[in-house]
């Protein structure tokens, strides 16, 4: 089967991702999936794909793809400057490519992750209902590893054509210099000392360079590590856990399903998209969440993109 494109350079961390593994949570499988779901969903939307079609997640640029067919792709997200044969294309849009042309996603000035979607979605190995690579666990999306130079890619509808589609500027999410993360307090929240509970909302942290797809680690004032948790507790997306040295971390897509440290609650699931684009050093504060407002926003997103039906 001849490829529709070949990865010339994958960059520091390029994986196949979709909307994540909805099943297997009970057996300990990480949800996985695109770190910035909003950017990923828009990439598929621009091509008229199924919302959860497999796409590429490129981290901090350094990526190049040589096309073997006349086709269309969509590029969304942050963290890169996109060119086709050296001509700047911009992002949050579809790009038509000819055989032999080279799409480069160079290192950009803001953000962390860019999505490249392909018409019909990438052909990819799936396991437990998803093509998302969880590199730590060796779950599919090319056997749970990062893409390599020379990796052949195929997608389901290379002949798809559409006029250039761009996301209107007002819909492109900004990449802020500092983040306010809505926090739903829960888990062992009430067992933390009152001084710590105040500090959570009064203090500020920065995104630590040791952050990855498993967790965004926060550097800054230490919290008392709270109560000792005897048995591990099931986690939700965006759970904020306080590790042994008193630093909070926010669990991201490749998180474990249960955790043994004391937890403050969880971050607004939609705010995780913005957090996924925050470079090390970005200032982060927690603000009190209003759960009903978060539910309404989640419901609107699910209806708009056609996602989230029960599994």
């Amino acid at each position, binding site marked *: 089967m001849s490829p529709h494109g070949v990865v010339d350079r994958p960059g520091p961390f390029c994986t196949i991702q979709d909307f994540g593994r909805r099943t297997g949570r009970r057996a300990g499988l990480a949800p996985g999936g695109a770190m910035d779901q909003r950017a990923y969903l828009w990439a598929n939307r621009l091509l008229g794909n199924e919302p959860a079609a497999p796409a590429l997640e490129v981290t901090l640029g350094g990526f190049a793809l040589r096309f073997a067919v006349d086709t269309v792709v969509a590029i969304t997200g942050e963290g890169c400057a996109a060119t086709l044969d050296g001509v700047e294309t911009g992002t949050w849009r579809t790009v038509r490519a000819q055989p032999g042309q080279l799409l480069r996603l160079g290192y950009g000035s803001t953000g962390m992750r860019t999505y490249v979607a392909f018409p019909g979605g990438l052909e990819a190995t799936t396991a437990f209902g998803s093509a998302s690579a969880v590199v730590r666990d060796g779950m599919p999306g090319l056997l749970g590893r990062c893409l390599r130079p020379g990796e052949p890619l195929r997608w389901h509808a290379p002949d798809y054509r559409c006029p250039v589609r761009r996301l209107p500027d007002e819909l492109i999410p900004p990449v802020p210099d500092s983040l306010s993360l809505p926090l*739903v307090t829960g888990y062992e929240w009430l067992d933390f000392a009152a001084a710590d509970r105040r500090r959570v909302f009064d203090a500020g942290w920065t995104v630590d360079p040791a952050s990855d797809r498993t967790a965004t680690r926060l550097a800054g004032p230490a919290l008392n590590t709270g109560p000792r948790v005897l048995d591990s507790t099931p986690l939700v997306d965006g759970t904020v856990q306080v590790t042994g040295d008193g630093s909070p971390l926010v669990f991201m897509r490749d998180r474990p399903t249960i955790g043994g440290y004391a937890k403050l609650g969880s971050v607004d699931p939609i705010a995780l998209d913005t957090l996924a684009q925050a470079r090390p050093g970005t200032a982060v504060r927690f603000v009190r969440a209003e759960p009903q407002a978060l539910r309404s926003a989640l*419901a609107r997103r699910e209806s708009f993109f056609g996602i989230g039906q029960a599994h």
Partner: protein
Amino acid sequence: MITFPGPVSALVTLPVPADRDGIARVLGLERFARDALPDVRATIPAFNRLLIESSPHSWDPEEVEALLTAAAKECIRGTPPEPETGEPVSLPVCYDPDLAPDLADLAAGKGLSVAELARLHSRTAYVVLATGFAPGFAYLGDLDPRIAMPRLPTPRRRVEAGSVGIADRRTGIYPAAGPGGWRLIGRVPPALFADATERISRFRPGGTVEFRAIDRKSYQAECG
């Protein structure tokens, strides 16, 4: 006790011990929640807790709390329903100091021979109290108090696949190589964890796991 750790999730903690009886009650509550609540997307039973995740379209926290409070009260009364967990899982373990770096020290510290420690570890029919941490990892209990020890103060950077560890009153098998802080007392032939699907689906909460001691020769034979 019911708390809401996220905008569309509820965590129920039953006031029961985290043992065979406790996880059976949690699994009873899980069945009720899946039937009674609309649009349940995921449930995770673990020890004496149950996490329920649902849909933002249908989640009414007051209604959920009322339903789950009533159900939790029912679940802690009487005899818990028998969980649907399939056949017991039986795994061979080689208790050899060469394969288990904490075995000799732990036995010495407890005033036991390696063989006695192996016997105390392999004579219990354990129950799966939770799955998670890594895909295919199961928290098994309860460990005989005579061999219980807290986890290592500093986790090892690398634990080999198939390693059998203990931590407090729990024991478990590392299904893949990686960092880990449990004290290592034996090894299951890693070939038993080679198939990802089998590895991930082997243990089910509430199920029974038995270990049978094998010698080094049989271990090598199983390793192929």
